[in-house]
């Protein structure tokens, strides 16, 4: 692997770390399998790109992307909480709708960012090579998100959100408005994904409606890899695990792609990732089954 490829993998890993953290929030903390991210990631990219082209400040454009993601999350949460549609189906509906919305936002399937200033622009002239500047800046943003989120989840409000995911009946008996916490959590999860989309557009120089496909699987893969390498109970560590998982996943992908012997192409990525996630989901069951049958044998 070349140095450029290495830093490229770290950079994309850091961008998707925000998706992983979002997926961790929905799947793990709220126990709400939310596929909206496949739509909110390109939505964030689209909103950011269009605003940048319109001359909006890159930080404001990124914030707008996060807010757009939050709005998408609220749609899913409303379909589920208010109208009792199964969470998976609710999120698929939003995701499909967003495909059209994203085309509308951009007016065409893809938008290139050529001369526009991005959040990275001020850091390019500092004498550090561009391929290192990008992961550095994204890394600082991710670190800030991890810090803020760890604090948030340790707050009274955040604790109530975690209780909502673990035992909603108990949470309600403790006065937690569980519905409100589902709205807030799914909005936050998709806001992070929208922000990831915005950073993707700015680091790669384009937004494309098809970049969303498989976002959820990549996010889940990162969460699972993170849980494997950093099996932590403490929340802050679990969030760091998401980041580490996302980077490791990208490094593994990069290695697999650069090893000619395996003969993988970039287009095989979704298949490989899906298989990886499926195996990771099946393994614990098999293990549990195995330990049950050994117990029974004794």
């Amino acid at each position, binding site marked *: 692997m070349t140095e450029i490829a290495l830093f490229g993998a770290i950079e994309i890993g850091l961008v998707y770390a925000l998706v992983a953290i979002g997926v961790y929030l929905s799947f793990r903390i709220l126990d709400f399998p939310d596929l909206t991210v496949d739509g909110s990631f390109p939505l964030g990219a689209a909103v950011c790109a269009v605003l940048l082209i319109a001359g909006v400040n890159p930080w404001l454009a990124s914030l707008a992307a996060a807010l757009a993601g939050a709005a998408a999350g609220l749609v899913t949460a409303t379909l589920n909480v208010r109208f009792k549609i199964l969470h998976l189906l609710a999120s698929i509906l939003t995701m499909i709708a967003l495909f059209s919305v994203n085309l509308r936002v951009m007016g065409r399937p893809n938008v290139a960012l050529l001369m526009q200033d991005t959040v990275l622009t001020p850091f390019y002239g500092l004498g550090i090579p561009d391929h290192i500047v990008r992961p550095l800046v994204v890394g600082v943003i991710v670190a800030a998100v991890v810090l803020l989120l760890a*604090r948030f989840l340790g707050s*009274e409000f955040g604790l109530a959100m975690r209780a909502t995911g673990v035992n909603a009946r*108990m949470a*309600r008996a*403790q*006065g937690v408005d569980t519905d409100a916490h589902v709205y807030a959590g799914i909005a936050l999860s998709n806001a992070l994904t929208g922000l990831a989309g915005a950073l993707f557009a700015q680091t790669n120089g384009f937004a494309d409606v098809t970049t969303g496909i498989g976002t959820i699987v990549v996010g889940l893969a990162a969460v699972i890899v993170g849980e494997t390498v950093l099996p932590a109970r403490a929340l802050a560590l679990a969030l760091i695990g998401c980041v580490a998982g996302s980077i490791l996943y990208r490094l593994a992908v990069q290695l697999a792609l650069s090893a000619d012997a395996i003969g993988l192409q970039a287009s095989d990525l979704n298949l490989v990732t899906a298989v990886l996630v499926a195996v990771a989901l099946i393994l614990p069951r098999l293990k549990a089954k195995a330990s049950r049958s050994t117990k029974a044998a004794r």
Partner: protein
Amino acid sequence: MIVVEDIHVTFGRGTPLEKHALRGVDLTIPEGQFVTVIGSNGAGKSTFLGSLAGDVLAEQGRIAIDGTDVTRWDTPRRAGLVARVFQDPMAGSCATLTIEENMALAAARGRRRGLAPALGGDRRKGFRDRIAALGLGLENRLHDRMGLLSGGQRQAVSLLMATLAGSKILLLDEHTAALDPATADFVLDLTRRIVRDNRLTTLMVTHSMRQALDYGDRTLMLHEGRVVLDVAGEERAGLDVPHLLALFAKQRGGAEISDDSLLIG
């Protein structure tokens, strides 16, 4: 004080499985009273407690707590007034959160939850002191996940959690039924102590007639969604289990009692 006026609850209205679970319950429970509730399976005991907690909304009638009409309030809104411990030890706490996090959740019951750290300041120390008083040695395990505790320990912590936010009403729905006899006795003693020390108005559902008479100061018997027996004071003091069974049989119109759950203890 709890005032319940003619409440009715029907499950599955208009379906073949329609069940009129509460059929006009009328009660006044003065502040600080400890009421035990008995009745055969399906009598409506859990539904009654649920209607006080807000889990099921009465379709008819009125519920007032300390003079406030709460008939239409949902569970989270009533939580500031009412604390509960469930039958299933797993139901009353969050298994994957730590003991101190569970306590912090309960301590904020009925308050607005903001962005201040849930375990900030001297909260931890306060929790440690409170849990040390249980005498279970849990004060050194505040960072352990709740799921690691035994059923009895979880019920004990749940009882403690019920007292952390200063609500004055405690609802216990067969909270010792899932425990072994020795543990159940410990939890019952703890219940008595906590109710007394915090002067809680308490409703305790039990499947044991013995417990129903030994604990508290008033006993209700529910049958088919109605209160069929309501004894307190001297009348209650003169009762023993056979009397109670006979009274129950009379209330049912002389029918034999066949329900095993009523004969225990």
